[in-house]
Structures are given as C-alpha cells and as structure tokens.
C-alpha cells in the first residue's frame, strides 16, 4: 500500500501535466474551481488515476472530492497502490 504522501505526489504530477502552466497545483488546490478544467475534463482525469493506481473510483466518491488532498485520501481508501 502506497503512503498518503506518495499518492498525493503522484496525483500532483499528473494534474500539473494536465492544467495550464500558469496555475500552481498544490494539495489544497480545488480541482474544479482552481484548475480551469471543466467537469468533463475532471472526469477524464479520474480515468487516468484509475490506471495509475489500478483502482476503480466510483462516481459518488468523486462527487465528495474538492481538493487534491481529498482525492488522495479517496485513492488511498480505495486501495490505490501499484
């Protein structure tokens, strides 16, 4: 099982690659409000996370997520590793 810090770092790396350069992404970044990504792009980002961590992320879990830290907690809770 990966550590929370490790999961967070990997999510930050993937998200940074996805958003425009001028937005600094941190663990407190609100994934919808602060990144300029629309709701469909966020959903597609989740597909990437499912591959990265070899987990399924149900839609209702995404609905609860606001920040990168929330997302990392959800990924860890769902058994994210690989």
């Amino acid at each position: 099982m990966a550590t929370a810090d490790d999961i967070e770092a990997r999510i930050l790396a993937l998200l940074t690659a996805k958003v425009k350069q001028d937005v600094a992404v941190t663990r407190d970044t609100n994934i919808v409000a602060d990144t300029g990504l629309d709701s469909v792009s966020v959903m597609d980002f989740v597909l990437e996370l499912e591959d990265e961590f070899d987990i399924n992320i149900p839609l209702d879990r995404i609905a609860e997520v606001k920040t990168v830290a929330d997302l990392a907690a959800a990924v860890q809770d769902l058994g994210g590793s690989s």
Partner: protein
Amino acid sequence: MGIKDRIAAVEATYGRLRALGRDPSRLEFQNVWSPTEATLEGRPMMLFGTNNYLGMTFDPEVLEAGTAATRALGSGTTGSRIANGSYGGHKALEAEITRFYAKQHCIVFSTGYVANVGMITALGGKDDVLLIDADSHASIYDGCKMADAETIRFRHNGPEDLARKLKRLEGHPGDKIIIVEGIYSMLGDTAPLAEFAAVKREAGEGVYLMVDEAHSLGVLGESGRGQCQATHVEDDCDFIVGTFSKSVGTIGGYCVSNLAGFDAIRSFCRPYMFTASMTPGTVSTARAAFRRMAERPELRARLWSNCSALYRGLGDLGFETGPEVSPVVAVKLRAPEIAVALWNRLIDEGVYTNIAIPPATPNALSLLRVSVSAAHTETQIERALNIFASVGAELGIIEPGAGRAERFHVITGGAAAKAGGRTRPAPQGPASAAATT
C-alpha cells in the same frame, strides 16, 4: 451555489452566445410541414438537425393511426399503468416490439429518458455495480445517480478499459451491469459491441449487458433492430433499451429482454410506476411506425445512401467529420466561436443544424451535429452541401472548393448532377461569391 447563482451562470453563458448571434435554446419554429422542412424566423429552413432518421413523422398511415386512436380513446390516459390500468394498445405495442426483437419480454415507458432511468434503477441495486461508457447520454448518468448501485465509468468505446475494471471487481458479490449505446448521438460513432459482448462473457456469471439503441433503432441491422443485430450479438445483449422519439417519430421508450421474470420489474421500477403512461395517440403512432418500418425497408436503404452523400460531401469539402459514415455527421471545429459562427451563417442561408460546444461535448470538442433523414431528397442534400461550401469558405474553415456539378458527380454517382435543372442556384450574396473563387 443557490438557484440565483445558477441562473446567473446560465445567463452569462447564453449571453456570450447571443452576443455572437442566435441563442440556440430560444429558437422557435413557427411551422413544420415535413420531416425536413420548417419555418424559422419567418423563412423556410431545411432541417439537418433532427433525429427523424426515417422521416416517420409525416407518414400518412402513421398520422392516421395516431389521430384515429386519439378520437376513439381520448387525448391521454391521465395516470400510470400500475395505478390506473393499461389500455389494450399498451399491451399490443409491447407484444409487437417483443416479436420485432424476437425476445421474450418488453416493457414500454413514457419516454426514452424514463426507460433508461427506470431500467438502470431497477437493475442497479444496493450491492451492484453499474459500468458505463464515459460518453453516455444524460439519461444514463441520471439513472446511475438515482440507482442505489455504485457507478464506474470506462473509456468511451473501450472494451479493454472495461475488462480491466471488471477484473478489479472479481470476487465482488453483486451484479455488474455494463451500459453502452448503439450509435452515439454527438459524433455518430458506433459501439464495438462484439468486443463488449466478449468482455462480458469472459467476466462470467452475474454480468449483464444493456444497450441503448436510441439512435440505431430502424437505422442499423438487417431488420432495423440496431447495433446489437448489426454486430450479431443479440443473444449477449441482456437488456435492449430504445426510444420512440427518433426513428419511430413520436414519444415513448421501451426495454426488451429474455430475463426470466422480467415483468416483475413493473412492480418496483418507480419511473414506470409513478408517471403517466403513453397516450392512446402516441401508442398507436408508435405501433403504426413499427409496422411501416417493417413494410418499407427501402427507407433504411435511402437513409444510408443519404448518410454517405452527406458524410462524403462534407469530407470532400474539407470539413473534419466524425469517425464513420452515420446518420449523425459531426463537423468538428477548432473553437466554440467558430462553431457558433458557422451555425448562425448556415441558418441565415436556410440550413438548420445542431450546435454542441463544451462542456456539453466529449473531449472539449466544438461541433455542429448534422443529421440526415431518409426523407431528405438528393436535391436538399446538394443544396445543403453548397451552402456548407460557401459559408465554410467565407469563414475560412475550408478552402474554396471545386465546382458544384463535379463534386456531386462524385457524391451521388451523377444523379443530382444530371438533374441539374432541379437544383436551385446557390443563394446570392457574399456567401456564394466566396464559393465561386
């Protein structure tokens, strides 16, 4: 965010569109007089933005059946079939659709939206998992939201991604319900159903496949049953859902299945139980339309020859189109503003299409959804392509193209070119000037 904020957000979005031209949410047709012609802004418009794939809405027998039933049985049922009872027509329609699909059971719903929400909530119980294509229609997403089951989304038309997700669920005790569509309504692409069916079979017991044939009923398959029939996997499709709002030309929805005891769903499916049933008029309209569909297979042939003409024609002009020949031809554009401009100029010139821009589209695409009907004439398609050519060149989307007659010789095998006398000249003005250079 409260209701006032949401209204303000919508106003801002549509305000931006309105500033560039018309507001697509406020268009009003003053009159519609055939499957392909209407009046908009007081001017005649060729309709290339409907789902009237077979042109059923003005079939004389269909119209007669609907009006006769309305006169005989009244304008509405005023209640649901569970609370207020079925009419004979509801039962007959279900029997006829069952026979059409060569399946054992059918339930008819009030709309296609309700059919999806109803079936998904009925299938997706508390410990079950719904696995849906990422580009699913809103009614599928809404059904998932309402169901007690968990929902997992897999990549659009991605059987491999679905297989990975099912593998992660190995040992999970609940049912798994895979949901895909026959033809996707925005890009007109079809689902690789043989591959999906193989993934389903591989995953073993308790895994079901549901296919929404909304845009493929009457369009695909030897007898028009849809993509399940076209790809020869009907036995693997446990639940086939569809709507009467497109090829059937009225309103209503259905699900067919061979599941033992399927009819019991009527007793716990809330979207079946708690909304009024189809009216006598729409029931009889749908029955007549299914009959006409069977009697007139040439409509499907006509539709496909029109599909090819429009798809190839737009491609030859230099527009970037969707991935395959289909009754829905997506014209992909570089930016939302370009889509808005093209959509507006086409209406100016008498061609109505649908506009779709982010976030309503997959992959942040901006596109015009151009749809074709068996009821379109060669001349209408030719005229529409000419207008696309001139407006597209005017807006700098495509290079000013080859001569009209030559182009149509390629597209329609010369029939339209030979009948040149029937062809209306391209509209005058700056648009046509650009096309002739």
